[in-house]
């Protein structure tokens, strides 16, 4: 493999690692804020225990999310220096703003939240977790804005004197329709991930704690809260995904063709659910299951009279426009990641509906299959998120900045032009060391989360401590210490 391939693998691996932990943080912070708010308002200790219980899992996850995120800030310069030169004028702004606006806020107030249980007044402590919840979502907005510039560059002009893309309008950059749609889609996915986690953990505990007062007073409300949020997230995912599809149809037709493994331009093609074939030779594909009307609706919001361009025709068009190069993404990966993303949604949806049905009235479910169903549901939103990002990012290959059909056509860059001028050996060193360290940490992360979920809410967290301002006597016990 050359440095380009190794760099692509490295960015893919480190980003996917980061995005195992990110959705749980983005979704769980607001959920914990809601739990704590219910406790502060109602004074019901069950919600205090819930806040502490999920708070611990949140912090275990937050740490590794931060750790895996640090690398991303520097990887652009390390492995993609030519890309960084070309887009730095535009791409650097949301990155710097993310640090200045969001990272400072979340890192400072998470410290206040962790250590402030008996130092801050209740309302201020509650405000801290709300600010954390706001900041993690803000940071998502900034970074997705940066990413969406690569998918659909706006507000930018190519300056031939400096040979790089230059920012013309920051408002256009931040109101990029691709960015806005991608942000809400990613936030909905994060809420689905976290709420499914909360619902499933509580559901598992309902069955495990069967017959105890905790099952009905603690875990049942938790499972219902999680399921309601999960259902709402599914609806939001459906609508934001639909908006994204319609944008993609116009802005990135090659990605749309790749999603369907569509070789030749067709009018009203059917949506393919299952195919057999090698995909990357797209004429080899045999379509096994197909659904009519879906695809024209996804693309343009009508059921017929829609022409979708095929990969081979697009390849010819692009060669004429941008010169010789292979412009078709890996069709196998794009086809299957798209289906995995959509298909995996069915499981959390079904689980949330099941939970709400089994807990209707004042019922407390006790069957073991329900507990097992809950456990198997937990990983599905994580996998769907990863599949979605793999589709988004690999669908724009070979571009690192895909040309905008309505923008400056010179604002475009292929990954080959964007990579640093390293030998493969150097990049192998970093690829291997990141992968190994991350692998070890991911195992420890899983061990810790599993340990804490199985241990359940702890004895010492049963009594909410009253807030105490610092006193004059020297030795004041800390409510929490590492």
């Amino acid at each position, binding site marked *: 493999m050359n440095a380009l391939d190794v760099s692509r693998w490295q960015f893919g691996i480190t980003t996917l690692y980061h995005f195992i932990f990110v959705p749980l943080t983005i979704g769980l912070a607001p959920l914990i804020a809601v739990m704590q708010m219910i406790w502060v308002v109602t004074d019901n200790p069950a919600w205090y225990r819930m806040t502490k219980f999920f708070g611990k899992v949140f912090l275990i996850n937050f740490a590794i999310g931060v750790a895996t995120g640090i690398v991303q800030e*520097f990887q652009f310069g390390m492995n993609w220096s030519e890309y960084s*030169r070309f887009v730095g004028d535009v791409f650097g702004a949301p990155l*710097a*703003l993310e640090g200045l606006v969001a990272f400072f*806020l979340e*890192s400072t107030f998470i410290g206040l939240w962790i250590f402030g249980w008996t130092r801050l007044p209740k309302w201020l402590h509650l405000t801290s977790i709300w600010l954390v919840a706001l900041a993690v979502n803000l940071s998502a907005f900034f970074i997705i804005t940066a990413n969406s510039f690569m998918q659909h560059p706006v507000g930018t002009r190519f300056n031939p004197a400096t040979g790089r893309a230059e920012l013309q309008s920051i408002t256009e950059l931040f109101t990029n329709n691709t960015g806005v749609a991608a942000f809400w889609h990613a936030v909905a996915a994060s809420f689905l991930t976290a709420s499914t986690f909360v619902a499933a953990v509580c559901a598992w505990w309902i069955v495990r704690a069967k017959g105890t007062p905790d099952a009905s007073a603690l875990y049942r409300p938790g499972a219902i809260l999680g399921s309601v949020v999960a259902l709402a997230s599914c609806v939001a995912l459906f609508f934001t995904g639909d908006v994204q599809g319609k944008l993609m149809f116009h802005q990135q037709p090659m990605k749309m063709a790749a999603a369907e493994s569509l070789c030749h331009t067709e009018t009203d093609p059917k949506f393919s659910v299952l195919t057999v074939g090698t995909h990357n030779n797209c004429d080899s594909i045999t379509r096994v299951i197909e659904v009519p009307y879906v695809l024209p609706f996804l693309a343009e919001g009508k059921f017929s009279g829609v022409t979708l361009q095929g990969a081979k025709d697009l390849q010819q068009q692009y060669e004429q426009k941008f010169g010789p190069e292979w412009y078709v993404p890996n069709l196998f990966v794009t086809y299957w990641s798209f289906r995995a993303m959509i298909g995996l949604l069915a499981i959390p949806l079904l689980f949330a509906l099941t939970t709400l049905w089994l807990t209707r009235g004042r019922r407390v479910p006790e069957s073991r299959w329900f507990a097992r169903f809950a456990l198997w549901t937990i990983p599905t939103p994580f996998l769907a998120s990863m599949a979605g990002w793999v589709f988004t990012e690999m669908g724009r290959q070979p571009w690192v900045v895909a040309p905008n059909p309505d923008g400056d056509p010179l604002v475009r860059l292929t990954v080959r032009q964007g990579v640093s001028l390293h030998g493969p050996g150097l990049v192998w060193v970093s690829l291997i060391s990141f992968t190994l360290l991350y692998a070890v940490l991911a195992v420890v992360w899983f061990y810790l989360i599993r340990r804490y979920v199985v241990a359940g809410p702890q004895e010492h967290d049963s009594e909410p401590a009253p807030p105490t301002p610092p006193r004059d006597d020297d030795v004041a016990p800390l409510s929490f210490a590492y």
Partner: protein
Amino acid sequence: MGLQQIWFIIVGVLFLGFFILEGFDFGVGMLMHWLGRMSKGDAETHRRAALNTIGPVWDGNEVWLITAGGAMFAAFPHWYATVFSTLYLPLLVILLAMIGRIVAIEWRGKIDDPKWRNWCDIGIAIGSWLPAILWGVAFAILVNGLPVGPDKNVVGLSVTDVLNPYTLLGGLATCALFAFHGAVFLALKTGGDVHTDAVRLARLLSIPATVLVAGFGLWTQFAHGTSWTWAVLAVAVIAQLAAVAAAGGTREGWAFLSTTVVIAAVVILLFGSLYPNLVPSTIDRAYDLTIYNGSSSPYTLKVMTWAAVIFTPLVLVYQGWTYWVFRKRIFAESIPPSIGLPLRRVP
């Protein structure tokens, strides 16, 4: 003053904030183990007391680095691209070390087991020692210059560009300075036995820190400095002497203020020696990467200036307030018993 000058200063200020705040974080991480060994009472409690002096704030301190990196990217993309693609290995080691430190700090108390804590302490130590040395090496390399070619890329990098007496001295100087800064911070933030031990450490570290920082400062000034950086060097030396005197007489507040001034002066000396270059070229001074040929467009700089003007004071206010909230000294006696789960194999 032009926007390019302003942004050179802003990036300098972000690194200044990073080195002052992470300086004592690194120091605490480096000295935690030794405070445990020095303690007459329970070593584990003393280590925890030390670690918890930075408990609520270390994460926010680290963001100064992330934001400095982002600011380099936004304001000087060529600087960002050239430096990080060239100083690849040091940066890789720094990143790996910092990843280990972050999770080690956060996960240390999650499992109540000596072996578990020992592994976390190793992670904290590595994650504090290595960056403390390597940041000094990296900045010394930068001030010294790199073989930047005409297209702003580094060509034909040799080992002596990176490893030479000057850069190694830079690494030792920052390491000693951060350890001293950390010891002084510990003395300021702890009480009882831990405090006594921290004061002893600070006294022990004061001499090597003074010698190394003075040596590195003088070398930088003679080899790369300009006329006005003599004043900065003088401030650094005076502040360092004041810090040594104050640490000896256990006036921790003054000692901490002094080491803070020393770090600020060293960063200003380095950035002042660099200005107006971003990376001086060792091939031909005509190829120097400067704030003029390495910056973003005026529009981007203007937008980012507005953002910095609005948000930086806000950050300073709420971070300062956090330090105020957790202002009380920590005693070994104020550390609560461990609430971690016992180590058990997952069946």
